[in-house]
């Protein structure tokens, strides 16, 4: 075996250019895989993060009616405790559940700001500032000023929204909204912070204000439109879900509220999971395309060495030894190409993972409600690189087995006659 491997290795240098072209083709395919997987992983990670941070938490508690009308930002179906006693007590009970680290209330409502020539629609989010900063990446996006403070009539909004309404940090803004009882009101706030986010929703639509202020203005004391539960990690969600449902049922609120995991509240996550499977087939296709070059090389090599194969058989080599010889030669090319491709792919992905790339232009017409980040940061993970390397080696070796089998089946007398 070691001598066969030695011959296979030396055979690589018979036609250096041909070997190099084959290795380059494999390297290219594997590099594309590392990079493409890095992008997909980065995209999926971002989608998960954005969805969890700005929509669902790990577990979301809403009323069934609110869930149906969520896009309308209705105030008629709030979370107001187990039996209407107020959300504070309910949050305290939920925090006691093992695995729950945080309970975050949000009060979302539709609002407008009038500029000289148009009415700009926006989404008001009454929040607990401390919890929001602790749970989300908002602090990184807060490029100017500070986050709102409880008890203060102040707001934080995105750069694009500020530009649209022609305001800046420090200015006052009057926001028009409907209270929970349907009366139209307007309140003036001080803009204390500016968010610059790659998430269209935060940049163009959301206005953060303190929860207590939102509750007071909307006449929704001790109410929120949703509660987000943050668990120790994603893996604990399936364990925490029944405990939350059990608590609500025990408190007589089992029928009022929906307890939804982060997976149940996103259309994008199942789509991404499906795309991950589809992409796996695309990776296979990419490597198979690279394999055509290697396959062609192997066919040429075997044609050229037919007489040599005959000689080896005459000397007593068996078909399986010949198969091994060519399979190992292919595997060497597979290893060299896959290694080069994996390393190059990792470096490119790592670099782009730092600087990211902006495809906001392509998403400019997308609804801000869809939590799709305009920046992609490909993930350069060791797992991804190792996967692409192993994948490349296996597929190339398997592809080489086809011509190698042909070589192994050659009759010595026929081969010698060539």
């Amino acid at each position, binding site marked *: 075996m070691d001598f066969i491997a030695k011959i296979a290795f030396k055979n690589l240098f018979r036609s250096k250019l041909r070997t190099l072209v084959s290795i380059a083709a494999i390297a290219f395919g594997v590099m594309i895989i590392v990079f493409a997987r890095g992008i997909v992983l980065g995209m999926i990670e971002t989608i998960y993060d954005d969805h969890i941070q700005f929509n669902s938490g790990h577990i979301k508690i809403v009323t069934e009616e609110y869930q149906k009308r969520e896009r309308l930002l209705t105030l008629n179906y709030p979370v107001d405790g187990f039996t209407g006693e107020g959300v504070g007590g309910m949050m305290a009970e939920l925090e006691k559940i093992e695995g729950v680290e945080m309970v975050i209330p949000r009060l979302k409502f539709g609002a407008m700001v009038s500029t000289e020539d148009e009415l700009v629609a926006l989404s008001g989010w009454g929040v607990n500032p401390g919890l929001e900063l602790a749970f989300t990446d908002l602090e990184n996006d807060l490029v100017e000023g500070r986050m709102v403070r409880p008890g203060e009539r102040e707001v934080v909004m995105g750069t694009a929204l500020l530009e649209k309404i022609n305001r800046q940090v420090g200015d006052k803004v009057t926001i028009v909204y409907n209270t929970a009882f349907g009366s139209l009101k307007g309140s003036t706030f001080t803009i204390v912070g500016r968010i610059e986010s790659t998430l269209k929703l935060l940049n163009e639509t959301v206005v953060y204000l303190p929860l207590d202020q939102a509750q007071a203005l909307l006449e929704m004391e001790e109410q929120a439109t949703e509660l987000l539960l943050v668990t120790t990690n994603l893996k604990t969600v399936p364990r925490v879900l029944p405990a939350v449902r059990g608590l609500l049922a025990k408190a007589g609120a089992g029928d009022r509220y929906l307890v939804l995991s982060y997976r149940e509240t996103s259309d994008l996550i199942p789509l991404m999971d499906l795309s991950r499977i589809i992409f796996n087939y695309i990776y296979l296709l990419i490597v198979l395309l690279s394999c055509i070059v290697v396959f062609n090389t192997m066919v040429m090599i075997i044609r050229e060495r037919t007489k040599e194969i005959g000689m080896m058989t005459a000397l007593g*080599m068996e078909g399986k030894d010949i198969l091994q010889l060519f399979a190992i030669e292919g595997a060497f090319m597979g290893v060299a190409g896959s290694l080069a491709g994996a390393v190059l792919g990792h470096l490119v992905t790592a670099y782009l993972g730092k600087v990211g790339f902006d495809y906001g232009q392509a998403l400019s017409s997308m609804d801000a409600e869809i939590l799709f980040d305009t920046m992609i940061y490909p993930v350069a993970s060791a797992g991804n690189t190792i996967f692409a390397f192993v994948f490349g080696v296996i597929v190339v070796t398997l592809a080489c087995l086809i011509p190698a089998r042909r070589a192994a089946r050659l009759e010595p*007398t026929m081969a010698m006659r060539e």
Partner: protein
Amino acid sequence: MALLELKGVKKIYDQGKIEVPALRGIDLRVGQGEFTTIFGPSGSGKTTLLNLVGCLDKPTAGTIIFDGRKLDDLDKKELAMIRRHSIGFIFQSYNLIPVLTAYENVEFALRLVNKYNPRETRDRVLDILSAVGLEGLAHRRPNELSGGQKQRVAIARALVKEPKLVLADEPSANLDSKTSEEVLAVMAKMNKELGTTFIFSTHDPLVMAYARRLIEIRDGLIAKDQRREQDAVLN
């Protein structure tokens, strides 16, 4: 007991609708240590006979007994094992592996036998290279050797495993007469020293001059089988 015995061996090649008889019924016995030449015109069946004797092909009819074993009953793997351990081949165009050195080409045959430890392998390879006059050239690749030197490497490769039989198909065809003579002298020496049986297929009168037994084949049949007490060159 003969090393090799052929009884009524026929070989017919099936070329579509036409059947081409290459051997029409060969009866032959070759003893241990013989230095035999098979000659005859092109297409007479020399190479076919060598292929059958070398376990590279099977006869259409008849029986071949090699070293007491009936070859007709053996499968591919068993035939490969006989070739690996008991038969050495020398080809007209040397058929050395170009990426291996002279040493490695010879080592290749020994590695297949897989009977010797690394030290024994090394000693055997160097000894046989020295015996065929290639001392100091062990680390040269085939493209760095002359035709005669390449054929010596091929001889060393055939002999290193100490086979019972060496088959040489036109071993001098690509060599000039001086080199042919040198190479034949090496083989004759090996035959005498090791007692290895040699069967040549050739047109070359020089090769025939070295032989102690001359078998002429015509139209797939043995036309003449002549033994000589002494060869015409070394005596």
